[in-house]
């Protein structure tokens, strides 16, 4: 990272600030990491989604705490207590819809955040651990969302919990013990609901902890940028405040409009109608489907007829992300300069959408075949295409610096980050 000339903010001269900072350098931290924190000057709006994800975590924790104050985690009382929140608690419907739709919003934001990382190669040296921590957050989010969906104790809550916890029984020898241990009994029942509630309350704070590590790792080398090249000097960077605080604030307002549309005008379109029926272990819903954000993984799970195989593939689909920094052998980060990767990136996005569609349909006929093809593509993308692309693709010439394309000047030559070639 380029050397950045740090000039303290005016408030750092305040005597109280100085007194505190001498003992606990919290103001220095704020000034260094939030205000003067040097960020590339060319970040586009896709870089808003990290801060949006952080804000969603806060929204979910706050709305969740208020829901928990009115929630009864028992099989006999959960559904009614949620209805009481919806009907009798002052603005309970608002808090619930913020939380319920917030889960979907959180995943939308995080999926865009992940795809941005994939497009611009943000997972590459020196940001591998930053990328890992992001995946850890993603996994914890999925666990939290899954357990949260069980809490209203609707039909999909119960049957989704039954199907997903049963996945663990696929593992030989230990599988059945794991399932009993998860359930705290011999079926999804009151103990299951109690522990899911406890964990659903706990995990967001674990996520918050990992988010801090994620930010820590981020701030070591700073943000990647749309050009995917390192900053060469102070002209490439601008302080986070006011530039990115202003840009993030505008992005937040636009995002909130989107979010508020669902909360106020379409609050249950993202969920499944069956979850408004109280859980009944004796009546199976016609079609058990997870929430939309799990559908791609659900399609991978069902792509192979073998249960253990499906479970391993599904976990593999996430675990493979950890290896991405080494599976992608290209040294050029941004897809802007990778004409072939750019095509494969969009094919990968389509592949994920196809998986999502396949996951929403009964596992038979055309959707099943689509799901299988897309599953193969998903793994081939990481295991075949990405390693090979690095060898065969001819990247476009990289600009000399971040500032060069906008400010002009500097050397007109290219940086030998990779084999510079003229446009094919």
């Amino acid at each position, binding site marked *: 990272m380029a050397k950045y000339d740090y000039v303290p903010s005016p408030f750092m001269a305040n005597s109280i600030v100085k007194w505190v900072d001498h003992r606990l350098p919290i103001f220095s931290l704020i000034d260094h990491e939030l205000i003067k924190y040097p960020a590339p000057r060319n970040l586009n709006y896709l870089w808003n989604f990290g801060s949006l994800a952080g804000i969603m975590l806060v929204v979910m924790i706050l709305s969740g705490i208020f829901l928990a104050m009115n929630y009864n985690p028992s099989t006999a009382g959960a559904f009614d207590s949620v209805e009481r929140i919806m009907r009798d608690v002052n603005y309970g419907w608002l808090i619930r819809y913020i939380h319920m739709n917030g889960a979907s919003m959180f995943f939308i934001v995080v999926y865009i955040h992940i795809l941005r990382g994939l497009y611009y190669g943000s997972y590459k040296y020196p940001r591998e651990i930053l990328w890992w921590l992001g995946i850890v957050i993603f996994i914890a989010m999925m666990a939290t969302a899954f357990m949260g969906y069980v809490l209203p104790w609707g039909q999909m809550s119960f049957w989704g919990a039954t199907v997903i916890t049963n996945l663990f029984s696929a593992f030989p020898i230990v599988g059945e013990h794991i399932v009993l241990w998860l359930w705290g009994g011999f079926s999804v029942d009151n103990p299951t609901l109690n522990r899911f509630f406890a964990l659903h309350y706990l995990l967001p704070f674990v996520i918050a902890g990992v988010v801090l590590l994620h930010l820590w790792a981020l701030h070591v080398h700073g943000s990647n940028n749309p050009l995917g090249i390192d900053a060469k000097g102070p002209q490439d960077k601008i302080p986070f405040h006011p530039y990115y605080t202003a840009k993030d604030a505008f992005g937040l307002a636009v995002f909130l409009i989107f979010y508020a549309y669902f909360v106020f005008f379409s609050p*249950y379109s993202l969920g499944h109608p069956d979850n408004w029926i109280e859980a009944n272990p004796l009546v199976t819903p016609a079609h*058990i489907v997870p929430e939309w954000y799990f559908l791609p993984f659900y399609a991978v799970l069902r792509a192979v007829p073998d249960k253990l195989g499906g479970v391993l593939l599904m976990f593999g689909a996430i675990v493979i992300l950890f290896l991405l920094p080494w599976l992608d052998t290209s040294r050029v980060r941004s897809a802007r300069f990778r004409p072939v990767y750019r095509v494969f990136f969009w094919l990968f996005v389509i592949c994920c959408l196809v998986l999502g569609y396949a996951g929403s349909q009964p596992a038979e006929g055309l959707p099943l075949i689509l799901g299988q093809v897309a599953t193969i593509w998903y793994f081939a993308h990481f295991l075949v295409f990405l390693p090979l692309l690095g060898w065969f693709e001819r990247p476009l010439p990289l600009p000399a610096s971040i500032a060069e394309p906008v400010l002009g000047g500097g050397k007109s030559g290219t940086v030998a980050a990779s084999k510079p070639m003229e446009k094919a």
Partner: protein
Amino acid sequence: MRTAKLLIASVLAFGLGIAAASAAETPKVPTQKWAHTGFFGTFDRAELQRGYQVYKEVCAACHAMHQIRFRNLAGIGLSEAEIAALAKEYEVTDGPNDEGEMFQRPARPADRFKSPFPNQQAARAANGGAYPPDLSLIAKNRVGGENYIYALLTGYKETPPAGVTVMEGMHYNEWFPGHQIGMAPPLSADRVTYADGTKATLEQHAHDVSVFLAWASSPHLEARNSLGLKVMLFLFILAGLLYATKRKVWRNIKH
């Protein structure tokens, strides 16, 4: 555990099979005109009250509405006195009293609607094994919501299409998944006599009770719409101001 595995496998197989079958057999229900849909939607109080009358005089014979309390009827425009008088028509079990006995007393506005059956088993036993679902959330827990309710209530056919055999005790309905429904056609012209003189056609009954059930599922819909519009207005103005701010802050930065 093997049984659990089998259960899951059969659940999936059976569930997916049914879903495929029902998806193929039940077409999408037509959308009706409602006063309460859209950004500015509000419930029509007259429709709500007529709908409640239909529920009370027809549906309530078999269908509970566990989540609704008499006091909630303020939402359909009934006064406190009307609600108290209405609640008094029902006897509910309370207790135990100081002697340890359960006793009957007239219902109060704070009581839940009285369920027609003491439990699900009794409801099934009285209805040929089919459970008349609780209607508190029916407009949320059926695909199509109030449009589905309306379609179902008006979708009975006395003679099923050629080649379809309706099982003993079942009825043919165009919109019910699988088309065979245990509920006999509940509504017909002049089934209830509307106090406001509205002509009681089958369609009018179905429309009114669908509105009532939509209200029961989302009693805060009007508050939601009205707050939502204010929030949206605020957010659009905020977004505009923040965009202007961003432009101003960035005016000297080439990027």
